[in-house]
């Protein structure tokens, strides 16, 4: 039987109040556009509350990585509130510094090379966690434990 392809949901806060939200959004988009386009699924965070059953079910059944701009960790907390524990968590302010992350709201039109470097740095960390989840999901075959990682393989993760 062909194994179902593993998808990972990357849930960004995309917060409008601070620069970290914009960085989180763009790093998540980079996963979809460039880094892991075949396996990344994004989820509109507000749909968790607005009745998006597909989003809630996806996040229950597949691994998710929450990407948050600031310490409020809204993406992580909302995902766990409505769907279940996340498999990975990236806090932008840990990577680019609290002052930068909690700086004024940032339009994508005002992105500087420095901002782009922040996006790249966050995307590297998302990718690291992404690949670790992939490895755990597909490289630990076990015959007795049913698949629970969402990839459909017969692994013990």
């Amino acid at each position: 039987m062909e194994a179902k392809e593993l998808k990972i949901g990357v849930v960004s806060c995309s917060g409008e109040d601070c620069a970290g939200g914009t960085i989180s959004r763009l790093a998540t988009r980079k996963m979809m556009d460039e880094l892991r386009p075949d396996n990344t699924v994004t989820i509109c965070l507000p749909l968790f509350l607005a009745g998006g059953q597909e989003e809630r079910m996806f996040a229950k059944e597949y691994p998710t990585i929450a990407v948050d701009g600031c310490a409020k960790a809204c993406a992580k907390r909302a995902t766990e509130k409505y769907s279940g524990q996340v498999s990975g968590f990236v806090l932008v302010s840990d990577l680019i510094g609290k002052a930068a992350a909690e700086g004024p709201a940032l339009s994508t039109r005002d992105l500087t090379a420095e901002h782009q470097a922040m996006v790249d740095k966050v995307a590297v960390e998302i990718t690291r966690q992404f690949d670790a989840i992939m490895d755990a999901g597909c490289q630990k075959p076990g015959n007795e434990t049913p698949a629970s990682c969402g990839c459909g393989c017969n692994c013990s993760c």
Partner: protein
Amino acid sequence: MPTSGKVKVIPCSGMGKVYGLMAREAALYAATRLCPDKADTMCLAYIVTGDADAEASIVNQPCITIDGCPAMCSAKSVAAMGGDVKEQFKVLDVMKEHKGARPGTATALTDEGWTIVEKIAGRLESRVQAICGEGR
């Protein structure tokens, strides 16, 4: 109850389609450039958490929502948390006035996309001004 006394312009910021980015940019443009003294924005993700502090910031406050798709996540979420939704904008309604337009992607807008965003922001500003004028 801590509030800014400003009209809150809250976009969906949907991740999957260009219309979510347009909603986000229009809200930012209105709140930070067109009428920063009368409007501000608020993270919809924070509202979605249901935190007491988030609720306290929005309950009974005048709000304008702007959504990128028919799911209307911003309008529904803000209303569910007790915000006083004065207007529900839909990016798709504006896009009907620009048939064939190529506004960009959910990652980046084209010049055409920015032109439409500024048009939406202008409408947001008008509504903000009207709300601020009500009852004064």
